[in-house]
């Protein structure tokens, strides 16, 4: 069972992993404004989605869940087999969480102009690291999608949306040609495509959020 919400990039990571492994599961859409008893029972610490429940055992935190999925269903591996490559995959996935997601969301939603400038700068610096790391590979995982690609779904699908809403240029083909190309390959990958949420409602949600924040300035 996967507890999630439609527009969450973190939930999407788990959906992609499950689809790659061909694992069937029950999906439960949560209402975060009115959290279910199920969510509170299965994630008492953070009370957030995603939560993956397997044989009554709950696991929160998207990257922890993805590694669990990879270790439980061993075909179509998501992490490489060699320890140093595995360590790099974990490093860059964590990097995306620590340096890209937070900065990018703040860049869009921050009403303070000076702070917003800093957030944009931070996001661009972080994306540059990823641009360099991708080198000439099709995906961060090589020929096939791996942990870092899955972690990076926020960059490939969410950043283009939120940058359009806020009129920012974060991920562009001029600034980051390799990363931009990667994002196109990634969102069009057959498995990933099926796991992404429909664009319109998610776009609508972030647009509404952006407008309410900037209107209240």
């Amino acid at each position: 069972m996967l507890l999630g919400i439609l527009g969450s990039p973190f939930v999407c990571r788990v959906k992609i992993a499950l689809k790659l492994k061909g694992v069937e599961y029950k999906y439960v859409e949560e209402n975060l404004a009115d959290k279910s008893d199920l969510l509170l029972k299965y994630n008492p610490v953070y009370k957030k989605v995603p939560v993956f429940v397997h044989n009554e055992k709950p696991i929160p935190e998207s990257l922890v869940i993805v590694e669990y999925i990879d270790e439980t269903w061993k075909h179509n591996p998501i992490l490489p087999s060699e320890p140093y490559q595995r360590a790099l995959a974990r490093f860059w996935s964590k990097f995306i969480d620590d340096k890209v997601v937070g900065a990018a969301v703040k860049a869009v939603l921050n009403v303070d102009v000076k702070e917003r400038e800093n957030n944009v700068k931070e996001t661009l610096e972080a994306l540059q690291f990823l641009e360099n790391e991708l080198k000439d590979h099709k995906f961060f995982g090589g020929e096939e999608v791996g942990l870092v690609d899955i972690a990076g779904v926020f960059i490939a699908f969410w950043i283009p949306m939120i940058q359009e809403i806020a009129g920012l240029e974060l991920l562009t083909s001029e600034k980051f040609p390799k990363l931009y190309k990667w994002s196109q390959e990634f969102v069009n990958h057959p498995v990933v495509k099926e796991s992404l949420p429909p664009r319109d409602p998610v776009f609508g949600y972030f647009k509404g959020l952006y407008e309410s924040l900037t209107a209240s300035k």
Partner: protein
Amino acid sequence: MAGESLTLIGFWGSPFALRVKWALELKGIRYQYVEEDLSNKSAMLLQYNPVYKKVPVLVHDGKPLAESLVILEYIDETWEQNPLLSHDPYEKAKARFWSRFVDEKCVPAVMATFSKGGEEQQKAAQEARENLKTLEGGIEGKRYFGGENIGFADIAIGWLGYWVRIVEEIVGINLIDKELMAKLDAWIDDFLELPVIKECMPPRDKLLNHNKAFHKLLTSSST
């Protein structure tokens, strides 16, 4: 393994470098230790960790790794004796979850208690106490997070008790309540008494003075 070179770049007062030291010592792995001067970062550190420019960094046969929890997993997968993580995926997930919880929730709250003043500090202290109580739940009534023997989560989290007690002394605020968090308190004592763990710890007085100076720096620059 002959012909291998293994270097840990660290700082004596860093709990994150300490995690890595513990893992290496527990597995009986030989390595070279390089003490970094964080006020004057070496070219080597900047070369090996250009992204964060921080310690610890582990360099194995010229291949660098940063981020202590990533390094711990690498060590566990490369040297399989005295395993830190369980073979069971669910137990692994729990160990990873609690280690991250400490870094993402407990550490910032304790740091805020340490560096702020007035109402902000009180709020941070309350949050820290709540997080520590939640953390106690992760022990699940066992002797250690890892069960009968210490494991990944113990090594990732064990330093916290030592540090928190120093913070408590410096700012005069209680964070680990000995009655309400008896299990956590007992686990901290148990863990810190283990010979391998104890041997690697920086001396308490040195760490206390270092953090007192750090505290002075933080609180004077905020006025």
